[in-house]
């Protein structure tokens, strides 16, 4: 089972061809593990005539049994007894149905080098202490939400000397406190320490609009950054919206575009995706993505739009090797980006079930109106 560690301790974080062999071996071992330990996964593999021996080349990854995220919402499957897992994390389902994914210790041991290497690569790691304004949830015992943990994790790249949370758990629900966040920002802007805003994109948008409404604009100290996470699903890649967002950040916060970082990952696929300086999500060596036809679910060639299938051998505790998200997106050759990375990048364009692409502002309006979690 060291094949997984061999992959995740890899130093060239965006070298896909160079990691193919390790990736394939790790997936083979990961699948074999789930087949041995997860009765449901075994049944599915048997029904589809799949075994790890079917994986000869990187293209064979398409043969992995595809499990939609809906499956994890309806079946809390596991390849490990709970006492052997390190933690359980849930997706932010609001309607009572959510995925529950267990993380094993080996997975956490593999995630640490991945996050550190990518953190250094994208210049997120800094020895200078920072103050954090989190436009998101405060993690607590009351929930096991992946997004809250991710945001909390993001507050460790620079040593934290203060944290303000804009969503607070009160009387059995989350209440947004944008005004409090705005006041804190204004106060910390006068200090010397860099400020890092960790936010759902939609919340950042509304926070900045609120600042502008109040006629406030602050200049955050040098080295300040904006880290956007978790709002992916409300924030489909629309270049117009993004450029408006960046311009607004420059205007009201004094944060330049290159200091705005975006991340995504899913509870079912906790890979640390980062944007490059051109704001594209290039595939790291620890994951592969297949875009699939919306009707037949067959793999599509580079550039075509379809359902996003995320593959990683990261987790042994839950069979999330090949997960079918309900997002629609496409892959573009890395060379087309211009940032220098060769690895293809993923653009998410919409979501299954929706007719149109929801704009950032409409999504946030709904969230703020209800004071609910996204």
């Amino acid at each position: 089972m060291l094949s997984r560690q061999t992959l995740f301790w890899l130093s060239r974080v965006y070298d896909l061809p160079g990691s193919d062999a390790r990736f394939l071996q790790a997936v083979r071992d990961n699948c074999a593990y789930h087949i041995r330990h997860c009765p449901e996964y075994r049944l599915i593999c048997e029904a589809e005539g799949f075994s790890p021996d079917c994986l000869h080349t990187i293209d064979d990854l398409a043969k992995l049994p595809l499990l939609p995220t809906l499956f994890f919402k309806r079946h809390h499957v596991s390849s490990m007894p709970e006492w052997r897992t390190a933690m359980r994390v849930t997706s932010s389902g609001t309607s009572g149905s959510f995925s529950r994914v267990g993380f094993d210790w080996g997975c956490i041991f593999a995630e640490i080098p991945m996050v550190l290497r990518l953190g250094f690569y994208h210049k997120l790691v800094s020895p200078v202490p920072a103050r954090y304004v989190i436009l998101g949830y405060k993690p607590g015992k009351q929930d096991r939400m992946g997004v809250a943990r991710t945001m909390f994790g993001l507050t460790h790249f620079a040593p934290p000397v203060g944290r303000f949370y804009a969503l607070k758990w009160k009387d059995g629900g989350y209440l947004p406190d944008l005004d409090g966040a705005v006041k804190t920002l204004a106060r910390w802007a006068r200090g010397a320490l860099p400020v890092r805003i960790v936010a759902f994109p939609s919340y950042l948008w509304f926070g900045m609009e609120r600042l502008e409404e109040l006629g406030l604009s602050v200049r955050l100290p040098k080295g300040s950054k904006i880290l956007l996470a978790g709002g992916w699903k409300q924030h489909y890649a629309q270049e117009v919206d993004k450029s408006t967002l960046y311009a607004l950040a420059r205007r009201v916060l004094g944060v330049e575009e290159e200091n705005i970082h975006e991340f995504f990952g899913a509870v079912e696929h906790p890979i640390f995706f980062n944007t490059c300086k051109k704001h594209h999500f290039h595939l790291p060596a620890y994951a592969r993505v297949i875009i699939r036809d919306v009707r037949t679910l067959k793999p599509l060639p580079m550039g075509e739009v379809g359902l996003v299938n995320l593959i990683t051998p990261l987790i042994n505790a839950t069979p999330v090797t090949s997960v079918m998200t309900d997002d629609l997106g496409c892959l573009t050759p890395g060379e087309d980006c211009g940032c220098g990375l060769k690895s293809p990048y993923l653009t998410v364009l919409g979501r299954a079930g929706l007719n149109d692409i929801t704009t950032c502002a409409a999504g946030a309006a709904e969230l703020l109106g209800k004071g609910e979690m996204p």
Partner: protein
Amino acid sequence: MIFANGELRSDREINAVIAELEIYDLPGTLSGPPLEADTVLDALEALGAELDSGALDPLIAQYAPPGAREELERVRPQISRAALERRLALELGGLAGPRPFGRSEVRPLGVLLHIAPGNMAGLPAFTAVEGLLTGNINLVKLPHGDKGLTLAVFQKLTQLEPRLAPWLYAFDLSSQYSGTIKALAALADGIVTWGGDGAISAMRKLAPPGCKLIEWGHRLSFAYLSGWDGMDLSPLAEHIVRAGGLLCSSCQVIFLDTGHLSVAERFCKQFLPVLEKAAASHYKTPGQAAQAALYARETALEQTVDRTGSGDLNFPGQSCSLTLRRDMDLELSHLHGNVLVKRLPRQELIPVLRRRRGRLQTAGLICPDSEREVLAALLARAGVNRITAPGHMSDSFPCEAHDGEYPLRRYVRVVDIENPQGRTETAPEQENF
């Protein structure tokens, strides 16, 4: 978000809104002039005119789920003035009038708390309209995922007719706020609950004794096919894809009037391409097609994981599927174009369907004309409340009952008033209107 007295207010004001309701608004409104059905009809007519002119299209596009515009087009005739007037006459006619002791009058229950459903856009507004038509004050607890449509409709309605404002309140709260729902229930004379067993049991616990419970629980519907060879099955396929199994009236199981598995298998092979064709033409956008493909994939996985050794025969199609099961029970299908097929010879119909008594709603019937009367009578005796052509299972018909009852009748009470001059012994029995 809260809608009260024609205005939107923040969730944080919930306790203040409830206190105002209890102390000022409800007693004030109930002491004032009653709400005339004509006022409501006028306002709805004005809203209907805006709808027809396309003025509401941006609102619908912004708030309603895909396909809502088409759905609305289908139900539009039911909210026309003529249709609502017909309903008032049919459902409440005959309740009031002279009686041997004096007279009977129809009065609203008073305050209705609606626990509104989330499976069909527009229903939360519709349940409130039924409450308004009968002269009640309506407190509507909106479903999760309402996305602002109902609030927008209520705002529009009260702008068109400000006199409706004190009769209409909406609460877009998460169900976690059970304390709030209990406080609202304490103000109500009747609670109208739409939803599954969970919602209904929860409301029964929260309702104070003496409060009238009006429950529109989840129902199951099915298609019944007898002698289908050579018949056009595409309306049934279109219904299955369009309704997605999400409505009480939508087909969960296709029952075949046969005892032979081979006949049922032959039906599946014959029907699958018809269903695929309906799916291909219904799921037009990539987003819709993707969702259908995901549901079909999920169905296949659930069949593998949950139904091992069951002997089910799977007929996976593109964006849809058929599952032939060996038992006869009426049960929930995999939904979203993934439907169950079972054998149910007509002589078994009553004992089998009786196991689901109180849950049955619509049967879509396909059979030769000569058999229609016999089969319809059999289905009605088994407890089915609606018998339609398969393509019309989820359509609403003018003047139809709801789950075997007239809803408006449940939202009113009859007040008997004795004539102080003494009983009118000779009052004629037939003097009803």
